[in-house]
């Protein structure tokens, strides 16, 4: 099978737009969580979210006009705009610009989203009810469909290879990268633009997740303290918006053109809980099996893992189940494992979480530093695993694993290895 490396990264997150801004702030221990003020929340139990800092595009702020013409933005939901921004960043970072028809055929797109255009669906429902079907925009459907993120990116950049999309709730971003890497390994493409995107910071989504009792409600007046994985006072996850997109490339293809290589995708594992629509299985067996499958594919043992970017959403049940599965996986090596949850800083980006966190894992490898778990003041369990409380930890990182688990009991793990030329 052909080997696959990562040659480009793109990020739009609550810590800003652009990989270096987001990463610098993450390592500095800054938080992107704030009180929601862009829509009515006084009747909602959860009033905190990870919100992208909008601005004129300077200082790492996000200016949608830099990535998509205003008249095009009007036709689509934000998840597509975020995907356009992150994909364009990743392609520019990679230096890959297909010119010939053959190069375009060999370059594909696989971008997913957990939910897609919920905000636009809500608005269109109101138009339909209040004004009737003749007032429904022709852009309603193509502006909400999840695969239109991949479609828009392919149209903008002329990418004519496989065009695909993943929808697996909070595992979407990880599945997108893993599946795209396989398309390259199998020879369906030489280069894939892959990742996840999500725009859930809207009233209907917050209300919906709050109804599932999944969101933090106890820190509405202290937003930066609301996401606190492994801490005894955690009470649910904090929703965040954004996109994380990578450029994956067949290894020899990347080396031949002298591309910068962030790391190699050496493992990808998938599993299902077959247990409950929203709750994780208490025994953590699904998490254990997807990590095991990824390591088997990678051909490395659990004791060789240096850093784990946890799913760690800050829910009372999920964090400890994942920790239990990791403990079972690594056995006696627990004392040398470092695991942190970057959701403590940006919240849970749902369909974008897995790809954003894959990028954090690759940057951890690049800079040899594990990002911190913010707000981990009083761990709820004792563990020999270093959960990187509050401050980043410089350390040697050769192999990193990133976990994602989603509603429906869908699990994915990715394993990356540092690239040595």
């Amino acid at each position, binding site marked *: 099978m052909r080997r696959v490396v990562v040659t480009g990264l793109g990020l739009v997150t609550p810590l800003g737009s652009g990989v270096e801004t987001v990463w610098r702030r993450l390592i500095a221990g800054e938080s992107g969580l704030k009180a929601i003020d862009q829509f009515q929340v006084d009747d909602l139990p959860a009033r905190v979210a990870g919100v992208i800092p909008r601005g004129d595009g300077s200082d790492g702020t996000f200016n949608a006009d830099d990535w998509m*013409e*205003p*008249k095009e933005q009007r036709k689509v939901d934000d998840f597509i705009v975020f995907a356009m921004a992150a994909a364009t960043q990743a392609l520019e970072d990679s230096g890959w610009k297909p010119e010939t028809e053959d190069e375009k055929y060999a370059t594909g797109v696989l971008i997913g989203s957990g939910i897609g255009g919920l905000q636009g669906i809500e608005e269109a429902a109101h138009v339909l009810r209040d004004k009737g079907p*003749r*007032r429904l*925009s*022709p*852009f309603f459907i*193509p502006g909400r469909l999840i695969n239109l993120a991949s479609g828009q990116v392919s149209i903008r950049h002329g990418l004519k290879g496989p065009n695909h999309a993943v929808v697996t709730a909070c595992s979407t971003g990880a599945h997108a990268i893993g599946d795209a890497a396989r398309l390259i390994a199998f020879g369906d493409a030489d280069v894939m633009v892959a990742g996840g995107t999500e725009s859930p910071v809207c009233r209907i989504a917050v209300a919906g997740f709050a109804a599932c009792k999944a969101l933090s409600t106890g820190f509405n007046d202290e937003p930066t303290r609301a996401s606190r994985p492994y801490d005894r006072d955690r009470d649910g996850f904090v929703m965040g918006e954004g996109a994380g997109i990578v450029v994956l490339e067949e290894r020899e293809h990347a080396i031949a053109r002298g591309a910068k290589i962030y790391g190699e995708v050496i493992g990808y594992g998938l599993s299902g809980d077959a247990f409950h629509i929203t709750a994780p299985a208490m025994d953590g067996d699904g998490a254990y099996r997807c990590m095991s499958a990824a390591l088997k594919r990678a051909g490395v043992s659990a004791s060789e893992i240096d850093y784990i970017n946890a799913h760690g959403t800050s829910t009372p049940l999920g964090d400890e189940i994942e920790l239990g599965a990791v403990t079972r996986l690594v056995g006696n090596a627990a004392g040398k494992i470092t695991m942190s949850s970057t959701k403590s800083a940006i919240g849970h980006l749902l369909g974008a979480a897995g790809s954003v966190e894959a990028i954090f894992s690759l940057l951890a490898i690049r800079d040899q530093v594990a990002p911190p778990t913010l707000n981990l003041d009083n761990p709820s369990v004792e563990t020999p695993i270093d959960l990187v409380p509050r401050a980043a930890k410089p350390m040697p990182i050769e192999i990193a694993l990133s976990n994602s688990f989603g509603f429906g009991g869908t699990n994915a793990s990715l394993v990356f290895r540092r690239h040595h030329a």
Partner: protein
Amino acid sequence: MSDIAERVKKIVVEHLGVDAEKVTENASFIDDLGADSLDTVELVMAFEEEFGCEIPDDAAETILTVGDATKFLEKNAAQA
């Protein structure tokens, strides 16, 4: 330019994101102003909303230029 022509021009500029000077009477939405077939559907909806009239599909198919729209609306607009 009539009041209706001004309002048509304003809608076209807003919806298609084009410079006002390109929106001449003979400008074709698709050939000159970069619209696609969905854009023209939305434009017709915007005209209906602005002028409080209904533009049937067979009439909409004959509205290809800025001038076509102005002429149709001068005849049919309820709020001209």
